[in-house]
């Protein structure tokens, strides 16, 4: 404090002011209470600027949180806008160095370039809080009072700032504590939530379990199978309601009783033994998944059941649960089915038919006993060799072919073949096969029958032969009658001529000759001779004028019909018949019966021409073709004795046969003539003859 000669009143006033200012400064901490450092500094600076006549008040606070210090500056109103706190800070720093302790007390005003008397004061005991600097251009700065006030203010600010810093630190600790508490609280809350969820989950699981148990209970309660549990003593612990229906026991009366009450007497011992063994060794002596057993109803009736078992260990005790199904009906159905199968099998095995089955690929899968007996074979033989070995060699290939076709096409199989009987005799059979199909139409199996048609076939053949014979007989009878009629017609005048001739001779030879009578006889001869000629002419006219019923005909059909008629004859005489029929042969207009007779006569002629042949093959061939587009030609060739006189063979009554009438070929020629055709014969280069006829084709009627 500098003491200058002053007016004492002034001095007193000054001192009073100083005391007032000190009081104000001392009152500052009360204002700062709870405030933060910047607010403390703010009020401090305002207070100092108001109390002291200074040009600059600057505070620098070390900021514990960062490198940059907090700087604040106050100037009187007139200088305020011209200076920034950090400019002051920089200026002071350059000027004074960083250490406030070493600051000079007098420095040049960094702003206005005039000298400033500076009072730097450290804040805190070691200046650790910061520094405060007051500066004035006044020369008397600082006065004693001013230095006092600044020191007190600096002390007060240090305390305030210290408190603020402390408070701030406490506040940080508190907030850290709060934060930790909050964090812990949150952690706890999360844990709680987790727990709650877990509980809910568990509850749901339990709920599910309860519901599932409920369901299982429902299943067991409503099951149509009996469900019975027993413990490891074989004592029944539980029985469901179905038990009552199946066994006749109320479930409650079963609980506590041994399981064996539900078994027939003979099974009980077995059960006990098996159960004991299982308990000891774990070895199951019956299948636990569905075993058919006998059970005993309360009323003592035995019935078949199917039983399945399950095993469960609870609290160290084993619990066995059996599911028992009454299979009486199923058994009955199965028995019936078996009986029906047995019947069916019996039928198949005993019916007098030969039955076979084959796989879709044609492989034989089944042959009934009769078929095996008939052929004297076993299933194995058939499996190995199939049909082929038992068929007649001539039938094997065509039959195999037909069967292959049926298998490939799925069409019904039908055919005839000779099957070898166990004694080696071949008999004719008709085979019939039908494919059984699934819902999609695929062949699943072939079923077949073999029918013995041997006798029938031979009967048919015999019948055909007798038909042929009959036909031939009719043919011959017709020819015979016809010949008789002609003979009669010719014979009558002939007989008269002969008789007249003889009479004539007698009259002439008589003594004396009766010339008149002889002449009469001779005249009758002439008359009757002429009449005979007339008869012959009339017969020929008869042939030609015979009203023909001409219809459109296929000569191939006619040939086939006649060949059928002659089948027996050719077979009997071991004649090989060859046909070469033009399938595109035009139709002809003709009388079916007459053309049949024509072909019949020509074929029969050929057959009979081969009768004497013993040293070579008897071959009869018939051929049809077009000799021109308008003409149909039929040729009949034989390998018989040939023709000695081809020119005469068509003459009526010309025959080389002992029994022949000599009319056959004459009739043939008449028939051909009546159809505007031509008939001729030729000797073959080899043995035999060729008879050919042509008929005009019916225009535009080719088949």
């Amino acid at each position, binding site marked *: 404090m500098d003491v200058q000669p002053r007016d004492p009143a002034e001095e007193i006033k000054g001192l009073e002011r100083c005391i007032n200012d000190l009081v104000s400064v001392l009152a500052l901490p009360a204002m700062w209470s709870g405030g933060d450092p910047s607010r403390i500094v703010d009020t401090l600076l305002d207070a100092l600027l108001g109390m002291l006549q200074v040009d600059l008040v600057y505070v620098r606070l070390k900021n514990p949180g960062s490198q940059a210090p907090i700087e604040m500056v106050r100037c009187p109103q007139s200088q305020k806008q011209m200076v920034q706190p950090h400019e002051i800070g920089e200026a002071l720093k350059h000027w004074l160095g960083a250490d406030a302790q070493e600051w000079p007390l007098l420095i040049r005003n960094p702003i206005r370039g005039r000298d400033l008397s500076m009072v730097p004061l450290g804040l805190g005991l070691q200046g650790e809080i910061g520094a405060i600097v007051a500066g004035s251009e006044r020369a008397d700065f600082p006065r004693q009072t001013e230095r006092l006030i600044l020191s007190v203010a600096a002390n007060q600010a240090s305390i305030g700032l210290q408190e603020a810093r402390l408070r701030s630190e406490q506040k940080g600790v508190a907030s850290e504590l709060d934060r930790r508490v909050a964090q812990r609280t949150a952690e706890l809350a999360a844990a709680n939530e987790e727990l709650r969820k877990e509980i809910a989950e568990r509850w749901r699981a339990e709920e599910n379990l309860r519901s599932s148990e409920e369901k299982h209970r429902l299943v067991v309660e409503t099951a149509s199978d009996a469900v019975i549990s027993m413990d490891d003593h074989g004592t029944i612990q539980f029985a469901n309601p179905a038990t009552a229906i199946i066994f006749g026991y109320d479930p409650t009366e079963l609980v506590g009783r041994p399981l064996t009450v539900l078994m027939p007497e003979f099974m009980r011992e077995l059960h006990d033994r098996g159960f004991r063994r299982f308990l000891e060794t774990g070895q199951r002596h019956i299948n636990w998944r569905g075993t058919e057993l006998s059970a005993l109803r309360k009323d003592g009736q035995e019935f078949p059941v199917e039983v399945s078992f399950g095993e469960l260990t609870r609290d160290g005790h084993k619990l066995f649960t059996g599911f028992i199904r009454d299979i009486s009906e199923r058994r009955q159905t199965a028995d019936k089915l078996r009986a029906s199968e047995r019947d069916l099998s019996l039928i198949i095995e005993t019916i007098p038919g030969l039955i076979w089955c084959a796989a879709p690929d044609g492989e034989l899968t089944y042959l009934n006993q009769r078929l095996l007996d008939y052929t004297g074979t076993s299933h194995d033989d058939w499996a190995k060799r199939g049909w082929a070995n038992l068929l007649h060699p001539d039938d094997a290939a065509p039959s195999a072919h037909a069967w292959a076709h049926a298998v490939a096409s799925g069409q019904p199989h039908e055919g005839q073949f000779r099957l070898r009987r166990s004694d080696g005799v071949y008999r004719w059979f008709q085979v019939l096969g039908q494919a059984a199909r699934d819902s999609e139409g695929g062949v699943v199996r072939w079923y077949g029958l073999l029918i013995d048609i041997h006798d029938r076939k031979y009967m048919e053949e015999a019948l055909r032969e007798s038909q042929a014979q009959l036909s031939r007989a009719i043919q011959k009878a017709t020819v015979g009658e016809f010949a008789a009629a002609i003979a009669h017609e010719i*014979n009558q005048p002939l*007989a008269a001529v*002969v008789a007249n001739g003889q009479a004539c001779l007698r009259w002439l030879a008589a003594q004396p000759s009766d010339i008149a*009578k002889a002449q009469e006889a001779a005249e*009758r001869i002439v008359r*009757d001779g002429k*009449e005979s000629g007339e008869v012959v002419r009339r017969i020929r006219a008869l042939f030609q004028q015979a009203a023909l019923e001409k219809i459109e005909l296929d000569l191939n059909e006619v040939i086939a019909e006649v060949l059928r008629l002659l089948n027996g004859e050719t077979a009997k005489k071991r004649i090989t018949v060859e046909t070469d029929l033009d399938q595109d042969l035009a139709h002809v207009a003709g009388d079916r019966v007459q053309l049949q007779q024509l072909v019949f006569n020509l074929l029969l002629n050929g057959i009979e021409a081969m009768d004497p042949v013993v040293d070579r093959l008897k071959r009869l061939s018939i051929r049809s073709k077009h000799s021109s587009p308008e003409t149909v030609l039929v040729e009949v060739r034989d390998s018989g004795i040939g023709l000695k006189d081809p020119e005469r063979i068509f003459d009526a009554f010309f025959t080389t046969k002992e029994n022949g009438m000599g009319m056959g070929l004459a009739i043939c020629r008449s028939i051909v003539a009546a159809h505007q055709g031509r008939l001729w014969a030729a000797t073959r280069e080899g043995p035999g003859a060729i008879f050919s006829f042509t008929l005009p084709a019916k225009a535009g009627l080719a088949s």
Partner: protein
Amino acid sequence: MNSDSPVVFVVDDDHRVREALSSLISSAGLRVAVFGSAAEFLEYEKPDAPACLVLDLQLPGTSGLELQQQLVGGDAPPIVFISGHGDIPSSVRAMKAGAIEFLSKPFDDRELLQAIDSALDRDRIERQKRSELAELQRHYNLLTPREREVLPFVVAGFANKQTGADLGTSEITIGVHRGQIMRKMAAKSLAELVRMADKLGISRAAGTV
């Protein structure tokens, strides 16, 4: 030719054959009568003379074989069949039924005339037999009913006594009947009477012994 001379009947539906046969048979010096059908022949009043029938097998209406069947047993003439085309079964039937010959047209005149001769000879014998039988029958008709009763016993060789016993009369009465029978029948001996009875078809009595 007198009324006793043999006659040949010809039945044939063919006039040419009829004419020729008529001429031929005439040339052999035989009487001929020709007919176109069986009916014409049956209606014809036949002369009392040896005869034969030349018959065609095939006739309209009644056939040759049918006519032959109708004529069997009567005093019909022997038959020579002629046929346009003789079939064996027909000829066999004809021959079994007593035909003399079966000729197929045309036939040889000698065959025919020979057959006709045979037939006429046969007819002559038959006529003789028939006339003898008629004479016997005439004698037999003279017998009383009782004599006709006795006759079988006589021809069987029964003694009068036994016959009498069988017929319930005396030996003497039978002897009288026997004498009457011998006289009326003009039998010279028992043997002749036996032959006569045979011809008349009288069977011998079996009688009780």
